[in-house]
């Protein structure tokens, strides 16, 4: 079977197609915009810590989603230097 010449909509290559990027950014944009329309439920009303009040700030979940995942990827990448080992590691290590 011959390879398809143009990039399909769904990511099919290590570099994701332009259309997919547009769709992704649009989704993110819409998710931020809807927040203007809803009244978010208050977290930790009784707590007076700065962190507790930050959780109620606009776009908290936006920042949390992006930063937490970026941090997880970077942390995994960093730890990988020490933790990654060959696949047959257990075959000759008791």
């Amino acid at each position, binding site marked *: 079977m011959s390879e398809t010449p143009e990039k399909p909509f769904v990511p099919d290559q290590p570099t994701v197609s332009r259309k997919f990027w547009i769709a992704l950014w649009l989704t993110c944009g819409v998710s931020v915009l809807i927040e203007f329309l809803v009244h978010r439920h208050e977290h930790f009303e009784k707590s007076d810590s700065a962190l507790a009040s930050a959780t109620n700030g606009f776009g908290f979940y936006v920042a949390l*989603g992006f930063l937490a995942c970026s941090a997880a990827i970077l942390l995994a990448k960093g730890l990988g230097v020490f933790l990654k080992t060959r696949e047959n590691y257990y075959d000759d290590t008791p």
Partner: protein
Amino acid sequence: MTLLNSIPPGLILILGAIVLLLLPATARKAGAIGLAALGFFAISQLETGERLSPSFLGFDLTLLRVDATSKAFGYIFTLCAVAAFIFSWHEKRRAENTAALVYIGSALGVVFAGDMITWYVCWELMAIASTFLILARKTEKSLKAAQRYILVHLAGGLILLTGILLTVHNHKTGSIAFNEFPKDEIGSWFILIGILINAAAVPFSSWLPDAYPESTIMGGVILSAYTTKTAVYTLIRGFPGWEILVPIGCVMTLYGIIYALLENDMRRILSYSIINQVGFMVCGVGIGTNLAIAGVVAHAFCHIIYKALLWMSAGAVLFRTGKSKCTELGGLYKTMPITMILGTIGALAISSVPFTSGFVSKTIIVATAEQNNYLWAWLVLEIASAGVFLHAGIKFPYFVFFNVDRGLRPKEAPKPMLIGMGLLAFLCIYLGCHPAPLYDILPLLHRPLLPEANLESLGTTFSAIYVDHFSNVVTMFQLLAFSALAFFVFLPWLKRTPTISIDFDWFYRKGAKLFYAAMDRSLNGLNKAADKYVIKTFLPALTRFALVAPATLTAMALKPVWRAMDPDEAGLAKRRDELVAKFTTGTFPIAYSAACVLIILSLLVLIGRTAD
């Protein structure tokens, strides 16, 4: 139906498994599905209460304790079994169905056990039966993994047994009832460790991603559901509200994410993902309010469904391609589109995407963390929710079904596999849109501690969850959309490598070696020193002394007599040498010995007289 009401459902599966061994392949496979369905029906007929109390070694067992919690776990255990046996219709090996049924039956045994002896026996039976699901792969790797797996579980079982014995011993009544454990008893802590090993809590977690990916296709699906969730069930029974479980659960959620990101094998990714999800449940048990416990049961229920679905889609890929590494897979959506869609539904459900089951169960646990002011725990659970989407929600389907087209053109998964997956995928969406049947079986009154929030505050109907609480949908949507953005922004950094990662077992493997070396140095050093100084130096000296000393002493005593008999020095020396020779060879004329005996006897008589 009184008969079903007094039979432990686990027993139906275990006895049925033995009968199935005798049947031909098709009847055996159909029988396994039928037995699981019969188990489900039997559980639905069980009336609340404690029954079946035979006496064993002077203890009254309780083989059947039925309440909302045990029934909820029973339902999902048998439901998952039905789907798994349909999925595994291709499986021809006799041993596998039997091992799976005994494993599931003993898991049900734990769930309905009302005493610690029944619990322990079923617990160990689970460990043994599950090992066969790994061995059945019949590869060198799976054999070794199974050996490591059973060793960990036997060790965990012994720790649990120690705890049970200590607890029974300390109970004034000698009661073996399996209820909440007291915090101030050492036995409770042993039991907790024994359970946490099965729950794959950090640092006892590495056995899971080591063993499950080496199991058979069916084995992976079955294993993913029972061992860890039985552990969660026993935590609910024995340790609700133990705050130590909150940090333990939080660590599990984060550890699962980081390791899943590092992994290359799709089934290893899913294994770490189990630990991440069980972390949510362990955390919920630690919070321990009745709503939190209800949330844990709901999450365990939904988790078993979507996790089995994910393992099935991975299994279908493995079945068709024979490959399980991300570096060897990719582009499969072209020829396995249905598997891709069903697997993706599982991936969305585990990520708690609105309208899937994960959204209506995980939300309860996260909400209780907030209601009970666990700020840090709440934050970690939210971060972990984003991380789940990253590793299981996107990474798994992306690297398996999309990414690079590696020219693999396998056929779509066989029909039974699609039916098994379809059933679970349907449940993922059905429960996400209409959670009432699930909420109805939750043990909301399991622990009447706090009058705080009930499920109504989160919504129990479609309109309440998705319309009245629309802001929750929005925030979840934001969290997931930006997690996805992070994934694709950092995609080049996520390039897979053909590696595995060193886990916490490193500590006990290397620790054991270190311990061995330390013991070798210290104990064998002591041995060597004892050999050198005691055996080779002291004892010969003692022997020499024992030989020479009597001769020297006798010679000294006889010297005046000899001198009187023969004043010549040379004669003296000769007599002395003769005496020493006689002592060392032990060759005395009989007269000498007789004289000595006579002297000693006389002395004894004298001493005896004096004493009188």
